[in-house]
């Protein structure tokens, strides 16, 4: 039996509708995408949907209270909320440098959490 799944590509703001047909978990056809990236997205979305996680972590002694962070790559969608639980416990000390690794491994995905902004250390008055 062929299963049909209608997806919306999120790879760019165009947001193409893509039709994926699978048979016993195997992809038999992908249509509607307007570029290669869309095909890749549909393939993954139909089998193992993944997302980049962006959030903030608390900063100690910084000029800002929090620093923006992101997963350095996509993690499985169902790991988003567990990863947030892990990140909640994290506090970093300023200075924070953009790109610096905050957590080595997000929820066993092997993907690190990195800083997506710089925060300077607060100068003592």
């Amino acid at each position, binding site marked *: 039996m062929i299963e049909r799944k209608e997806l919306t590509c*999120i790879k760019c*703001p165009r947001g193409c509708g893509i039709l994926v047909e699978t048979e016993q978990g195997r992809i038999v056809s992908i249509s509607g995408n307007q570029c290669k990236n869309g095909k890749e997205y549909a393939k993954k979305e139909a089998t193992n949907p993944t997302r*980049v996680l*962006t*959030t903030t972590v608390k900063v100690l002694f910084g000029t800002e209270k*929090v620093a923006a962070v992101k997963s350095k790559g996509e993690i499985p969608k169902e790991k988003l*909320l567990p990863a947030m639980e892990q990140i909640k416990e994290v506090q970093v000390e300023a200075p924070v440098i*953009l790109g610096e690794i905050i957590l080595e491994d997000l929820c066993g995905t092997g993907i690190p959490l990195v800083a997506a902004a710089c925060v300077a250390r607060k100068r003592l008055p």
Partner: protein
Amino acid sequence: MLQYDLVIIGGGPAGLSAADSAREMGIKSILILERDNKLGGILNQCIHTGFGLHTFKEELTGPEYAARYIDKIQEKEIEYKVSAMVINITRDKQVTVMEKGAGLITIQAKAIILAMGCRERPRGALNIPGYRPAGIYSAGTAQYFVNIEGVMPGKEIVILGSGDIGLIMARRLTLEGADVKCVAEIMPKSGGLRRNIVQCLEDFDIPLKLSHTVTYIHGKERIEGVTLSKVDENLEPVSGTEEFIPCDTLLLSVGLIPENELSKKLGLSMDERTKGPVVTKEMETMLSGVFACGNVVHVHDLADNVSKEAKKAGISAARYILEEKI
């Protein structure tokens, strides 16, 4: 009085990109004025990805996208002041600035670029019956709370309006542990990008209630809930469809308008449709030597387009200054 060839008002992506391109054109004397305590503009609070696909061929977060431009400004040693709010501009290009620690200063410019961005529509524009209890915020204010101040506006949330900021906040608050009850949209179609509906609402099973609006706000001190009603094709609430939804926070995502107090003071001709100043293809306003770019001209969906437009404004302002000299 301080003197600069080019004064740029606003240190968001528009102001930064304009400064960068004016310097590329050979303008040495440039000053960027930013009222916030850092450069980057609204991008500092837009921590989600989706920036820079066109300009850098990468999906960056807002702060990362801003950092690319801030780095250029620092490399090129372009001067800027933060915590410096422009309060007036005269037609002969004198700029009055309130600078933290320095007080009022006046700067004479040869050319000016307006890059003040936009702000959210005031909530007063919305007529919902009920008291005005605590717990009602604009979506952008909530974004500032969570992403800059690190505090949550509430735990049980209803979002009215399905523009991109509302959608992005639905996901953000869910990730932080809040219960987002629904996003209500009065129109039959969402104004947000399709990709945001997928990755911000569908990923987390947050209902999008199209053709629905809030018709009553419950609670006196703090909001206790809202009444949601279906609307007909004339956007009028249909009686009998009311549903009470308990919540401690209501976010309003009702759109943005260009920030044009200064442009109006300057007496620039305004475009009724975009709510920004009328500009030529070269991004010059109807006052010679005053240019504008970014969200101050019209609200852009993509920061990439803002940077591109600002580059044009930077080049035009540079040409204006260079021609003056000859």
